[in-house]
């Protein structure tokens, strides 16, 4: 498993009184959003309230039981058996059985769903491999070994839905989670109310009212104006964090290393086909400076390793930055620049990041031209098309999924198009290895390859500073986990 450590600050973490209404502001991904967890346009903030997964992530990054109480893999890492929780009921009163779990996986794999997670799971699993010997057992036969397979089910696309509910789940949101849906308007308001029969205990809150607010500043204004109690999935920049903390009614809490910022260099395009150029681009900058400028130092330096230090499989390895060597490498490669670097307002950190990088590499004689691309076509027209750009991912992906999805040759999200047979081989070997220690070594070797030869610059992991009302208590969030049961209002 993987993940990041929960953290928080301010008075938001004390125990909550029971009862009350939490008003939550959330970003607006699309007006076509849906409550179907498998969908690429799922309404993320609702999922944890409405549904459960088979397994979830513990604060230390290891796997923890959710709807599955136990799981075991065969010695060849090709068969996984999940024992399911008994006595769990859906919001509509029906009992949760292995059929629902199997349906969920089939729904994800169904090409019609076009789930992003299908690409990850379909390498190992197809409908034939999913069997339910009894109501509380789910057996998965993989087409190839994967010792980390259960960690792939932590993904938020893998929330369990009811058998045969594909057509309705998008709007009805029937799950087993601590809250049940009262109303939902895509791109608009939605309300969930406490589900007293939740297997993990009834939530503290009576209800949560979600509203979608597209503009970050508007979300913060709503918080400051007392219209909402929490701005979810909103990283406050340094200045805003100050403003929010200074306001008598609001405070901030920190989610450590919540976002991984990355500058992919297109492996297939000039000038990055040349390993010297890639190395030079990585040697030339100062990650501490980048972190200080882009996120006000609020984060953890990454040293070009995409795996966060909180992950159990993390490799503590870094190459000393050296602008002089970068300069000579560039000269060796015959690169004189300047290099265009794309950024966009899709995330507020991208532009400062690009500018910080631009300023930092001046010492190595590397010229960068920052170009802002339209936010609405950034991920269609620039991403994986332009040689050099800024990008970001939420942390919380298990290491296996992270490396396979974003770094393996030909993987669909391999945004740098990096391709390295040795690296791919290490990943394959790790998947077949059931011994945890040996497997960790393999993953760490793969990380070293990424750092040394990879085509991505990963300066830092940024913490997420969340703004909330001082009334909020029991707030806890890390990775893709949000504690909906214990969050509430202070007495």
């Amino acid at each position, binding site marked *: 498993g993987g993940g990041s450590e929960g953290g928080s600050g301010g008075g938001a973490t004390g125990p909550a009184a029971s009862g009350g209404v939490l008003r939550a502001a959330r970003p607006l991904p699309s007006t076509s959003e849906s409550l179907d967890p498998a969908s690429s346009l799922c309404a993320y903030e609702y999922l944890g309230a409405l549904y459960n997964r088979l397994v979830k992530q513990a604060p230390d990054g290891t796997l923890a039981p959710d709807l599955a109480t136990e799981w075991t893999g065969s010695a060849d890492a090709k068969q996984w058996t999940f024992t399911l929780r008994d006595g769990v009921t859906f919001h509509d009163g029906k009992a949760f059985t292995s059929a629902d779990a199997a349906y969920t996986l089939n729904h994800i794999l169904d090409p019609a769903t076009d789930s992003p997670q299908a690409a990850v799971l379909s390498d190992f699993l197809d409908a034939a491999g999913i069997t339910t010997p009894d109501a509380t057992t789910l057996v998965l036969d993989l087409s190839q070994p994967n010792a980390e397979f259960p960690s792939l089910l932590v993904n938020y696309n893998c929330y369990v839905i009811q058998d045969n509910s594909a057509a309705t789940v998008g709007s009805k949101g029937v799950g087993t989670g601590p809250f049940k849906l009262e109303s939902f308007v895509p791109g608009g308001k939605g309300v969930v109310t406490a589900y007293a029969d939740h297997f993990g205990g009834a939530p503290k809150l009576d209800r949560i009212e979600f509203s979608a607010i597209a503009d*970050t*500043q508007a979300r*913060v204004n709503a918080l400051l104006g007392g219209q909402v109690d929490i701005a979810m999935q909103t990283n406050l*920049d*340094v*200045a*805003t964090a*100050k*403003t929010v903390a*200074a306001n008598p009614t609001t405070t901030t809490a920190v989610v450590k290393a919540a976002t991984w910022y990355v500058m992919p260099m297109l492996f297939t395009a000039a000038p990055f086909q040349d390993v010297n150029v890639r190395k030079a681009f990585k040697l030339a900058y100062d990650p*501490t*400076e980048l972190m*200080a*400028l882009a996120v*006000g130092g609020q984060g953890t330096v990454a040293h070009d390793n995409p795996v966060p230090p909180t992950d159990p499989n993390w490799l503590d390895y870094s190459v000393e930055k050296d602008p002089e060597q970068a300069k000579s490498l560039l000269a060796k490669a015959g690169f004189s620049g300047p290099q265009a670097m794309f*950024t*966009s*307002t899709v995330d507020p950190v991208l*532009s*400062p990041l*690009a*500018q*910080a990088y*631009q*300023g*930092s590499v001046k010492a190595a004689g590397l010229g960068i*031209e*920052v*170009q*802002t*691309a*339209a*936010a*609405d*076509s950034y991920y269609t027209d620039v991403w994986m098309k332009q040689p050099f750009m800024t990008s970001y991912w939420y942390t919380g992906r298990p290491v296996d999924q992270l490396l396979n999805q974003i770094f393996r040759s030909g993987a669909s999200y391999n945004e740098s198009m990096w391709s390295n047979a040795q690296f791919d081989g290490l990943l394959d070997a790790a998947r077949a290895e059931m011994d945890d220690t040996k497997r960790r070594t393999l993953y760490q070797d793969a990380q070293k390859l990424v750092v040394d030869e990879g085509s991505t610059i990963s300066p830092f992991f940024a913490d997420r500073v969340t703004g909330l009302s001082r009334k909020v208590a029991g707030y806890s969030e890390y990775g893709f986990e949000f504690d909906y049961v214990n969050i509430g209002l202070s007495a």
Partner: protein
Amino acid sequence: MSSPLDAPVLPTAPAAPVRSPVLGPVVRGVLRSPQTLLGLTLVVVHVVLALLAPLVAPFDPVTNDATSILLGPGDGHLLGTDQLGRDILSRVLYGGRYSLPLAVVAAVVTVGIGTVLGCLAACHRGAFDEILMRIVDAVLSVPSILALLVVVSMFGAGGPVIVLAAVVIYSPAVVRVLRAAALQVVPLDYVTAARARGEGTFAVIRREILPNVVDVVFVELAMRASFVLLLVSSLSFLGFGANPPTPDWGLMVSENRTLLAVLPWGTVGPIVALATLIIGFNLTADGLAKIRGVDRTLVGV
């Protein structure tokens, strides 16, 4: 007193030597109107600052400094620093270098096109006029935000695109205004005289019509330049403006707008710069238009 025909009337003030019949009154008019003087001063100060920015700015506007992030005013940074540790005052001072030429070029191109088409329409009533006005109406009727987003999505951000967007959005309105102004002039005798001499349309426009609508042209230039400045800042707000780290005012405002409550100068500085330049443009144009004889603030469409 030679002949009574050209004898000056008695009593008479000593005739002031008339040197330049055009510049003289303009200079005198400017000196006499405090608003115009203020406007002109604002514009001149902006132009001078833009030219001399490297000399007067205390810091380099694009050099990041991780050790002085988000400082308040003081300590050598008169207006404080921004998130990347850059001196806000220096960025404000440099800001004119980007916005000023852009606004001027966009305004000149827009008003140029609008003036030529507007005058042509006024001279050639009939089919040409009708068709042109229908097109102008149609373009005007398209919500400008849509036109703007289409242009920006098509061509990306940056200076030339802003000029193009300004032309698409503003020139139809300029055509209308100039056509209306030219229509006041076209029926006058001196235009008839020129046509009776057999002068070509462009000669008539250049020699007879244009000099008499320059006040309108001035006002339009100032107005469109202001609009472009505001457009650039709105575009930056929407993420289509200048490329960072250009010290553009609009970009600065949008970069620093979250700071408004804690470090207001990051936003207030560029807004003051922007507003003073716009006020300067407008006061100057109003003043010049008034000196040129007609107070036609009325011709805004």
